[in-house]
């Protein structure tokens, strides 16, 4: 009986170790240098990140010089009265951008993220931008609204923000297009 009791304890002890390993808490706590392969992966990540920055900078300077640059951004504030599905943007009557949102993207917008919707070039002068927002409005009904902005493009980059916010007084969403200095 003593032998079996010992046997029983051994088995339980063995399995307890298995449980703790499975739970991830049976590892010894010791400082150990990262494996060489981890270091190599880290070095590569660092190199690619830096290279990526250089490449994006070159791309922007080459394709979208500051003097003619136009950037469109989209942001959302709260989103209680509007659930964004898509946005279509036209500039001087021509389609500029059309975007369909995934739940992850709308979530990112609701949490305070700002999406760069478009980057391109625009000649100096007067222009008109029209954005059409589609989604679910108050009470979950289909909702489609437009907003427009007339603006002058001068020399230098132009930043324009399409902003969707809640207007509590009317319990309706509000769509505003504004220029940034």
């Amino acid at each position, binding site marked *: 009986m003593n*032998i*079996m009791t010992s*046997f*029983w304890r*051994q*088995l339980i*002890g*063995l*399995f*307890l170790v*298995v*449980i*703790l390993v499975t*739970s*991830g*808490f049976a*590892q*010894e*706590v*010791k*400082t*150990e240098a*990262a494996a060489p*392969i*981890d270091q*190599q*992966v*880290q070095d*590569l*990540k*660092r190199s*690619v*990140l*830096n*290279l*990526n*920055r*250089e*490449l*994006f*900078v*070159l791309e*922007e*300077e*080459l*394709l979208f010089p500051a003097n003619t640059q136009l*950037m469109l*951004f989209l*942001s959302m504030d709260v989103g209680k009265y509007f659930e964004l599905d898509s946005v279509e943007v036209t500039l001087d009557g021509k389609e500029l951008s059309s975007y369909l949102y995934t739940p992850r*993207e709308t*979530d*990112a*917008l609701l*949490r*305070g*993220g*700002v*999406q*760069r919707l478009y980057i391109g070039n625009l000649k100096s002068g007067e222009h008109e931008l029209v954005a059409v927002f589609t989604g679910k409005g108050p009470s979950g009904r289909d909702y489609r609204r437009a907003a427009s902005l007339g603006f002058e493009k001068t020399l230098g980059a132009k930043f324009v*923000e399409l902003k969707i916010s809640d207007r509590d007084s009317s319990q309706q969403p509000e769509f505003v297009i504004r220029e940034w200095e």
Partner: protein
Amino acid sequence: MRSLARKLSLVAAIIGSGQLCAAEVTPRAGVVIEDLSYGQVLYEYYKQDYFSALTTLLVEEHFARINEHATEAELLRGGLLLSYGLHSDAAEIFELLLGNDMAPTLVEDGKALFAEQELRGRAWFFLGKVLFQRGYTSEAAEALRYSGDKLPDHQSAERDALLSQAYMELGELGKAEQIVDAWESVDDWGNYARYNLGVALVKANRVNEAGVYLDAVGTIKASSEEMLALRDRANLALGFVWLRQEDGAQAKVALERIRLAGPFSNSALLGYGWAEAAQGNYRGALVPWLELRDRKAIDPASQESVLAIPYAYRQLGANQQAVESYTAAIQIYDDEIGRLDRAIVVARQGELMKQLLTEDISDFSRVSWSLSSLPDTAEARYLYEVIASNRFQTGLRNYRDLLMLASHLRDWQARLGIYGDIVDSRMAAYAIALERLPDGLYAEQIAAHRSTYEGVAETVSAAENSYGSAVFASAKESAVLQRIDALENSPEWAMASADAQEKLQLFKGVLSWDMDSDFKLQLWQQQGQLSELGTIIEDSENTRARLVQRLTATPLLLEDYAERARMLAPQVEQLIDEVAVVSSLQISELGEVAAEELVDQRERLLQYRAQARFAQAAIFDSVSASTELAE
């Protein structure tokens, strides 16, 4: 690898939710966006695309488009680097943010000071995390302590969980207990901290105290799968702790709380059998164990049940069945060990990994690997357990990151070629435009206009100074003036009558009066026109100057682009090669990790087999002794 495993064990909550990266760094909530570019970084971050978030941040900082959130952005950059596994780079940023003065600010009045303290607190917090992950536990605990009381709630909870874990690792269980006992809110971090403390106390053989914490987690009201799994895990640990104490009744209470359909149901069945056995109910013990025996043989609980069954038979006095079951168990273990040996060889060859990994690389954002594409072979079934292990998942993250890097680099390779073409096209277009331009770029024409303008301006100025109204005389008036002049200079005029001469003087006077009365208007009109003309000429001169400047700068700019593209292209090529090499190494490493995990499984089976042989021999000895005694 051990440190990585430790890191993973620390944040088991994160692993469970599949959001290891997401929980690594969190920007301050409710930030009013003052720079669109900073919002753009947050957008990528919230989408959990950390590589894009980091790249965007670096690019926007390069163009100096993040000014209002500069410090916040640096903190985020450090957090993103930490999340992306670049610990040393992250640590540098946090240390830089904290400056040389590593002591916390103690002044607490004023909004700005509050914001600064919050920021410093978060920097300390992130630095503490980096240090912890790099194995500097003592320093990490110090940094975490400095993070103060201005952290947002979710980070404060995470800080407390990390700090308590650090104390556990430093063997200062009392301090860890103080933190856990003072936990006021009921949150996931608190549950993990209690669970960790419970396990640490078990290891320290303070079983009764451990039971309190494990029981607390084992009775939480959970709704998420993550917390349900943690609750099951706590009950399982608690159940086996009581079993080790030979307290079957208490063990059953804990084990009965485990979900039948959960991932720990097999282990619960095994434990339940032991609990019955501990209470002397071996028939009752056989029920779950026999059920387990028929389940998959690679599950540790099922493997142990094979050994527990003959033990129960032996206790029930059924020696014959016990011997047969031990024989069957030994055969099962032999078979499994043989299959494991083959699986180890296949894993080390790396072919299995390649087959597994290349089938499911489309979605880089997945934290865990899909098991659906496992090859249907005898060796592959062992991989289920291997793939779920922390070590394998860590290597897998590396491999997935490498695949993503390779994808980015290939994309850039193609784009750089296009950009090279764009630069060439622009250079060609520039050369053609240059040929079409006239010599001197209208310099003579513009100079001539300038000269004419200045001549007219001089005349007008002279007229103004001399009050010379004749300058602005109309054609008719000029003709009349000429006729009068001719008349007065003629020889006959001296003989003209006094009346005629008086009339002419009168006429001259009237004409002069008319011209003088229009002079100011004329002068104003002329000066206005002159000013407009001056502006036009100046515009022409400026336009020409800009054109000259662009003509000078454009080739330099295009050459600069071309040069940068030329320099970057081989770097892209080189990194593509390096990523391929390291990816291959990582595959081998994964194979080795898999093999090591399989070796661990094999070791466990060897122990079970030894136990079975020993127990079988003990029965034979006992029977033999009884027979001798009878004889």
